[in-house]
């Protein structure tokens, strides 16, 4: 959209996505130098170091779990689901921003997505890995999870129950993981070819060469490539909406007050995008400084992401309003009790008010253009949102379960240290994978940024067919 039809300085003219003064060579040099350098920033080692220590904690927690069983976690009847499913939903939700940015914004022709889509897609994959750990290890015996979860002909001729939302989850999440990897790798191929051609060390060039599959940038290949990218985006968009919808069915299909609500699917999807954009900003703000990417990830990008976060945050708050309204308007005494217990009389009411501070009050700062352009403010707001979205799942899952229909089945829930070690362990795994990714693969889609340069969209010659884009 560089060839704007508006005169220069007209307010209707679109904001340039890239900082001016860049060319094909400078963009390529800048983005390949992040990987082909001997001067890794010290901060990178700090992040990977902290991440890797937490991964060691995760290993310890999971080993202990396999030795002793899931009794080391705090969840027990009536709170049969706690950190394991809270963290699962939290991580899956975080992943959704990646697909939203790369698929839905592609279909809407939002050029600003190009600078952030690759790292957001990588974030999706790593978040899904972290998410998948929880239900798999909650089975206690993950080596048996294969026949509990996947329909394959086994000697007992048993099959999963397809009338249960939990098996829908298996299909949704495994499809999501597969399609995300395929979409991400398709996007990587042309940039891997750039890496292959610019690697100095023959072994490194060979590795990138194998991964690039011999891509040579042929016009015919690009033609198919654009076709396929558009189709993959078109397939990913309904997929990403379905994944959190199915995750919300895990709750909405149950009869428990606080779970049994028709607002759940859209409210969960909006919450996922909200959490995801907060996490993208949380990661990109340090990476942008660390690798000096201010010309590629401009304030325009950060402001746009803050706006998406504000809008989806308001949809989430609308969801909170709906839950409260349904509880009152249904006239159902169990539903009304659930809401009073959640907000006022229950022992975990504090979590609901903390949630409102994190997800309702603090993000309102993003209405102000001044704050949307202040990196420390945005980063702080994102941290609140990250915590807030975790608390939202805590409120929905734990406070609904610990006070259900019959007072005799009420009980308190307390997480154990192993719950916390596992949660922070997956955060470490996520950080480690993310920072290893930026160091070995192109974290920004180089070929897409090239299409944003002023001369990248040539006009068909007068004698030609005249029908380009």
């Amino acid at each position, binding site marked *: 959209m560089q060839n704007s039809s508006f005169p220069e300085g007209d307010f209707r003219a679109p904001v340039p996505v890239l900082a001016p003064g860049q060319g094909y060579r400078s963009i390529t040099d800048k983005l390949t130098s992040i990987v082909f350098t001997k001067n890794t920033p010290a901060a990178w080692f700090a992040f990977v170091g902290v991440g890797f220590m937490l991964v060691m904690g995760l290993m310890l927690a999971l080993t202990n779990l396999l030795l002793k069983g899931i009794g080391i976690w705090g969840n027990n009847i009536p709170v049969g689901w706690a950190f394991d499913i809270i963290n699962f939903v939290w991580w899956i939700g975080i992943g959704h921003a990646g697909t939203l940015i790369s698929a839905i914004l592609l279909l809407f022709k939002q050029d600003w997505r190009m600078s952030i889509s690759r790292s957001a897609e990588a974030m999706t994959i790593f978040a899904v890995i972290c998410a998948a750990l929880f239900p798999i290890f909650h089975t206690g015996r993950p080596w048996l999870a294969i026949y509990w979860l996947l329909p394959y002909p086994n000697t007992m001729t048993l099959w999963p*129950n397809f*009338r249960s939302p939990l098996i829908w989850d298996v299909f949704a999440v495994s499809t999501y993981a597969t399609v995300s990897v395929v979409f991400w790798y398709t996007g990587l191929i*042309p940039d891997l070819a750039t890496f292959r051609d610019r690697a100095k060390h023959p072994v490194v060039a060979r590795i990138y060469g194998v991964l690039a599959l*011999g891509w040579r940038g042929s016009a*015919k290949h690009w033609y198919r490539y654009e076709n396929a990218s558009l189709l993959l985006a078109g397939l990913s968009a309904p997929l990403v909406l379905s994944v959190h919808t199915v995750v919300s069915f895990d709750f909405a299909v149950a009869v428990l007050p606080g779970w049994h609500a028709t607002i759940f699917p859209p409210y969960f999807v909006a919450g996922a995008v909200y959490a995801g954009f907060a996490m993208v900003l949380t990661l990109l703000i340090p990476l942008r400084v660390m690798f000096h990417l201010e010309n590629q990830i401009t304030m325009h990008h950060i402001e746009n992401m803050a706006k998406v976060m504000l809008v989806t945050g308001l949809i989430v708050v609308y969801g909170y309003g709906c839950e409260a309204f349904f509880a009152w308007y249904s006239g159902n005494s169990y539903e009304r009790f659930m809401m009073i217990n959640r907000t006022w009389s229950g022992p975990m009411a504090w979590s609901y008010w903390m949630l409102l501070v994190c997800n309702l009050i603090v993000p309102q700062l993003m209405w102000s253009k001044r704050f949307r352009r202040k990196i420390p403010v945005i980063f702080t707001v994102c941290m609140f949102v990250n915590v807030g979205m975790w608390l939202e799942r805590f409120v929905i899952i734990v406070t609904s379960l610990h006070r259900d229909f019959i007072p005799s089945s009420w009980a308190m829930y307390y997480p154990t240290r192993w719950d916390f070690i596992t949660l922070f362990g997956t955060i470490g795994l996520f950080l480690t994978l993310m920072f290893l990714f930026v160091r070995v693969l192109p974290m920004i889609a180089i070929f897409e940024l090239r299409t944003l340069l002023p001369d990248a*969209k040539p006009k068909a*010659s007068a004698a030609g067919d005249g029908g380009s884009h």
Partner: protein
Amino acid sequence: MSHAATTPERYGLLAEFDSPQTLLDAAHAVQRAGYTKTDAFSPMPIHGLAEALGFEEHLIPKIVLGAGILGLIAGYGLEYWTQVIAFPENIGGRPYHAWVAFIPPAYETTILFAALSCFFSLILLCGLPKPYHPVFNHPRFSTASADKFFLVIEATDPKFSMDATKTFLDGLGAKETVAVDE
């Protein structure tokens, strides 16, 4: 492999351009001049370039549609067969053929099959993986993935003639035209 006796065959003439505009104009000119065995190389997609070389193909969307329908049938068929035929179980009094509950997994398998077919049809139609290709013999071809633009006319083209084609390409504003071998 003896090096003495074999002379590699000529693959074609590879012309280098500086900008997408000169490459696209050259592609139109090459097409008008009647060359058919041609290709262009660029570090990013250029709209209209493949069409300018007379390339048109609508295969991938059809393959993806077919695979999607197959995925839907496979997913729904798996559910129907396992829940109704292979091992019918009464769980909570729900019907064996609970078609509403069968929608989410069938929806996911539809997307899974379609997305995988999209990726594999892209790779296979492009003839990838292809670690060796004659254009890589051009000493400056590595810049085609950074900032330079190339156009090739293959030696097997019926109109190809070493001298005339080279003069023709040079006249289109090529910075340099190099013959590459197979």
